[in-house]
Structure formats: structure tokens, C-alpha cells
């Protein structure tokens, strides 16, 4: 039992791989098929390539404001890889790897960041909420979804994401408290990437770890090496299984690092040292997992190069589709506020449409 063996109050962090991809925790290597290991790796790599591409396109003035994701792929893919299709995923906004794992298409992701609400209308089979910009509010939705699963007697589990900054919000505490009281089948993943824009984790809370906050709500909490995909998978799988058995929620703190900026409008050199960034680059989640797979004969540098090239092209081609998708239809900015457009809204729409037709053409 990971949660029992790694008590955050004793300063213990759960990990499986070291920064060079060597197994350091034999007893806790999760049972994952080779196919699934490769799938995890490919999703992490696609996440990285899609992220780099979005950033590049933003610099060219083609993409709008974007929140980079690089460095956090293991925390996202490892955790989201532990749930099933029937389970729910409630994201924050910097969880690209989790979304792709859940089945959101890259086209939808780019469409959202490109300024079109249809980017948040995922396929019916993808049980994922849209990005939540108001920090921490989404955790209460996750609890409500999980409460409903329990009330309806369905064995779904909900996994929800938040960052270290979000743990200072009231919604974080209300959600964890509710989940504990109602023993809801929900797993909270805190991606502790050390910064909330410029404010460092040390200013967010005097708690030594974020995981230990679980103690106050009477639920299990564990701190995990968030750059270790196997550790993230193992810890999340255990929590998901526990939730599915009706044993309630878990808080998982994924210790990771945002290697890029908060968003494309942010300049991280104003608040952190290059040396710190370099140190975390050494702990890159993709680099270490690649080494792990190569050591086991499951991957190679050649395959890696080819895969990167394929994903980069795929990301660019996908973006071109989005770029050519045109403006939002006028009717669409009105018609989704209510099941049926109320009369006053219908009038505003008609009046503006008539103006455009008459005066603008």
C-alpha cells in the first residue's frame, strides 16, 4: 500500500524511477503491459511536441495566449492513465497530457486555445469537463460528479486536477472536506509545479508538503515524484481502486516543475534562477522514461527521432486545420446560453444580424 508506506508527515515521497530511469523501488513497480508503457511514452512525447508547436506558433503570431505544459507530462499521463473510459476527468488548465490520455483530440485542444468554444465540446464518449480557469472551482464539480455516481450506484471514479497555487483557494478546502464527509469516489491530483505564476510554493503554504493537507480531512494523502510516470500511475491506480471499492477519496501531490512560462504572456526569468531550471531539466520526465524503455529493449533513439518528427508534423497539420476553421458563427455566441433562446436574447441577435446585413455586408 503506497498511501500507508509513504506518510507525508514523515517526509516520505513515493517514487519508482530515479532521474536516470533506473528502478529504485522494486517492490512498487506497477504491473503495466509493454504496449501500455509505450502508449504512455508516446502520449508524453505527443504532449511535448504539441506543446512546443503551440509555443512556436504563438511566437509567430498564429496562436493566441497559450499555457505551456512542458515538464509535467509524467504527472498528467501517469495519473490519467490509471482511469478507465467510464471514469470522469475534471481538468484545471495545464493538463494537456491528461486530456490527450482521456481521448480529447489535439484538434479540440488547439481549437480551444485558438479562441473557439467548440474546442470544449468533446466527443460524447470523452467524460471530461472543459478547462477551468477560475482556480480550484473545478474540484467541487469533481466532488459533485463523484457524489452523483455514488447516489446512482454506478462504479465510476472521478479524477480532478489542480496546481499548487490552487490549494490556497477556499474551494480546495471545501471540496476535500465534502469528499471526505461523503466518502466520494474522487482522486485529487495536485500538480505542484513550484510556481503560481511568479509566487513560489514556499509562499503558498507553511505546510511542509501539500499531501499532508489530506490528514486534516481524514483522507489518505501521498506525495509522489511527479516526473516519474510509473510512480504517478501506481499511486493513482491505487487511489482509483480504493475509490471504486467505496473507500473514498485520496489526495495525491505530484512534485514536478513547470519548465516553461506560466503563459506566453509571462517572463519566468523575473522570478527564478536559470540554475534552478537547469536542475529540473536534469529530472525531465520524458528523458528518464525513454531511458527506462530503451534499457528494456522497448524503444530506441531511432524510433524516438522518427516519432518526434511524426508528432511535430501532426501537430502542425492539426493546427493548420484549426487555423482555417474560420470565425465563430454569429448565432453560436447567442444560442447556447439557454435550452431555448429567450425572447430578449432573440431580439438582440436579430437586431445585430440585421445591422450587419444592412450596414456591414
Amino acid at each position, binding site marked *: 500500500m503506497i498511501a500507508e508506506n509513504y506518510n507525508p508527515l514523515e517526509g516520505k515521497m513515493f517514487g519508482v524511477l530515479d532521474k536516470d530511469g533506473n528502478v529504485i523501488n522494486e517492490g512498487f513497480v506497477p504491473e503495466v503491459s509493454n504496449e501500455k508503457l509505450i502508449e504512455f511514452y508516446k502520449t508524453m512525447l505527443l504532449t511535448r511536441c504539441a506543446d512546443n508547436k503551440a509555443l512556436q506558433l504563438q511566437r509567430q503570431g498564429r496562436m493566441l495566449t497559450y499555457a505551456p505544459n512542458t515538464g509535467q507530462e509524467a504527472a498528467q499521463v501517469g495519473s490519467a492513465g490509471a482511469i478507465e473510459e467510464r471514469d470522469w476527468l475534471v481538468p484545471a488548465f495545464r493538463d494537456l497530457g491528461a486530456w490527450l490520455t482521456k481521448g480529447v483530440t489535439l484538434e479540440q485542444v488547439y481549437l480551444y486555445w485558438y479562441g473557439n468554444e467548440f474546442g470544449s*465540446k468533446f466527443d460524447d464518449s470523452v467524460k471530461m469537463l472543459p478547462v477551468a480557469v477560475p482556480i480550484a*472551482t473545478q474540484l467541487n464539480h469533481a466532488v459533485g460528479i463523484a*457524489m*452523483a455516481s455514488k447516489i446512482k450506484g454506478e462504479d465510476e471514479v472521478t479524477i480532478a486536477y489542480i496546481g499548487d497555487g490552487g490549494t490556497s483557494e477556499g474551494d480546495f478546502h471545501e471540496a476535500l472536506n*465534502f469528499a471526505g464527509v461523503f466518502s466520494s469516489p474522487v482522486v485529487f491530483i495536485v500538480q505542484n509545479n513550484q510556481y503560481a505564476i511568479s509566487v513560489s510554493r514556499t509562499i503558498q503554504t507553511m505546510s511542509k508538503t501539500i499531501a499532508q493537507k489530506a490528514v486534516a480531512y481524514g483522507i489518505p494523502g501521498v506525495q509522489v515524484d511527479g516526473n516519474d510516470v510509473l510512480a504517478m500511475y501506481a499511486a493513482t491506480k491505487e487511489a482509483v481502486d480504493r475509490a471504486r471499492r467505496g473507500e473514498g477519496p485520496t489526495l495525491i501531490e505530484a512534485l514536478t516543475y513547470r519548465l516553461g512560462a506560466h503563459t506566453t504572456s509571462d517572463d519566468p526569468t523575473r522570478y527564478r534562477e536559470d540554475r534552478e531550471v537547469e536542475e529540473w531539466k536534469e529530472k525531465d520526465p520524458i528523458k528518464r522514461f525513454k531511458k527506462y524503455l530503451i534499457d528494456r529493449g522497448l524503444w530506441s533513439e531511432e524510433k524516438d527521432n522518427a516519432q518526434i518528427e511524426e508528432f511535430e508534423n501532426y501537430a502542425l497539420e492539426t493546427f493548420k486545420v484549426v487555423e482555417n476553421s474560420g470565425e465563430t458563427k454569429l448565432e453560436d455566441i447567442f444560442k447556447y446560453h439557454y435550452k431555448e433562446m429567450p425572447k430578449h436574447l432573440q431580439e438582440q441577435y436579430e437586431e445585430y444580424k440585421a445591422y450587419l446585413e444592412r450596414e456591414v455586408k
Partner: protein
Amino acid sequence: MALLTVIGAINQALDQEMAIDKTVVVFGEDVGLEGGVFRATVDLQKKYGKDRCFDTPLAEAAIIGAGVGMAINGLKPVAEIQFSGFIFPGYDQIVSHVARMRNRTRGKYTVPMVIRMPHGGGIRALEHHSENIETLLAHIPGLKVVVPATPYDAKGLMISAIRDEDPVIFLEPSKIYRAFKQEVPEEEYTIPIGKAKIVKPGKDVTVVTWGAYVRETEKAIKELEEEGISVELIDLRTISPIDKDTIITSVKKTGRFVVVHEAAKSFGPGAELMALVNEGAFLYLEAPPTRLTGFDITVPLPKGEHHYLLDPKRIAYGIRNVVKF
């Protein structure tokens, strides 16, 4: 038919909807075991179990936020906020998510929940127990806001709210929770949201009000009629969306418009109603559209509250001035 109070009618509506729709869940602070501080949910837990009527921790953001999740996952949440003055920790959830989820996901996820709460003053209450917050809710695209004025309407509007596919904020004037009884049919019935009611037809002036002030205005009208002033009284019933047609039709007939509300004056619902009248019946007006409202002050504690609240005498005075303009 039974004689019911507003609170009794709300309880009956919840009870009957829970009986026919298993997805309806009722929750909030003290709503389960105790049946609510005003007893709106009394006996529901006993009847439908703790899964469908339950007490929550004291946390408005979680009550409303969890309701969002429940609605997305197929339930019909009916959340109680203990007083409208306590809504604010959950206001972010209402503005940012309850109201927006349908639009943000282009219809994939919707939040057909009801958020009900005691509303308004006149009950000699503590601080933060007498607020009028219609504007703060009606200003948000994506919400519907309802205020019943009678037991009959309370039941019919509550059933409509629960069955509505959009989120409905249900403001219950606490002053009239037990002020009077009315014959209420035992069977279920609905009253359309977005439709005002002409309480009494008249020809000299159109008066629009809602909630607890409908009764106060009716008393004022009696006084005016003895003086020969004929008032058309409209109970708005739904603050958003406003039933513009009923109001404009009436003003075109009477040529005068008065709105009476408990909320503060500036930027209040009366401002919106007067704007609608100006847009829709400007050339029919024989006097400036007028609002009789609370002052732009914090609702005073009970020893000073009577200055803030309008009584029938002041309402009659205000209407008389418009007719004599």
C-alpha cells in the same frame, strides 16, 4: 385542495417532484434531519432517505459547486442556501460555472439545478438575513431568476424550476413564508417561468412588483381605489427573463408606470424595467416612469428597518403622485 402557506407549498412541490423523479436530490445546511431552518424540506429525508435529502458541511461554494457536478452527472440538484445574504461564497460558482457550462461546452454539459433561498427583509432578523439580491443574479446571462408571491405560485413555479433544463435561482420571500394561507391543488401543476401575472386589471397606472411586496401593494391599491384611481397590478413572478410583453401592453393601455421593489434603488431591477418601458412604450407615457424602492443603504437592523421597507401608505403615496403628475 388544502390551505397551504408558501413554505408548505414549497415543501409539497419538492415532495411531489422527488416522488415522481428519482434524480431529484435536495441538500444544503440543516435541510436533512432538521428539515431546514424554515422547515421547507421537512420530512423529505424521512421519506426519501439520506441519499436524496441530506445535510452538507457549512460550505456554500461546495454546495453549489457539487450541485454543478451532480447536474452534469445526471441528477436534478435542488440546493438550499440558508439565506440569500450567505450566497456570496458560492457566487463564484454561480457566475463562473452554473450560468456558463452550457455555453462553454456548446451544449454538451448543462446544469439544470435549482438554487433556492430565503430572500428579503421584514422578518426582524439578524445582519445579513434580509438582503435583496435579484439584480446580482438577474444580470448574469444563463440564469433564470424566480420570485413567488403566493402559495399557489410557489408550488407551480417550484415544479417548473425543477423541471427546467436551465439553472433556476428560486428566491423565496421569507416575510410571507407563513404570512397567509391559500387553497393549493393537491395535484401537480406548473406555472411558466418568464410569464408575469396580472393580479388586478386597471386603467390609470401600471404597477409592477413581486415577492412580499405584492401583498403590500394590493393593500395600497385598496386605498387608491377609494379615491377613484384604477391600478393595473402585475406580479412579475420571474425577474429573468422579464415578461416584457405583458408590461408593455399594460403601459400602452394605462400610460403610466410604477415599479415597486424592496432592493436598493440604484442599478436595481426597477432601473431595467423603466428602461424597457421607455424603449417599448415611450410615446404612450403620460408621466415619467417611476420606481418606489429601498434606499441605497445597507438594510438596517430591525430597529431601523421600517424606514427602509415600503408600507402600503408609502406605496399609495408614490403611485398617487404619478397619477397626478
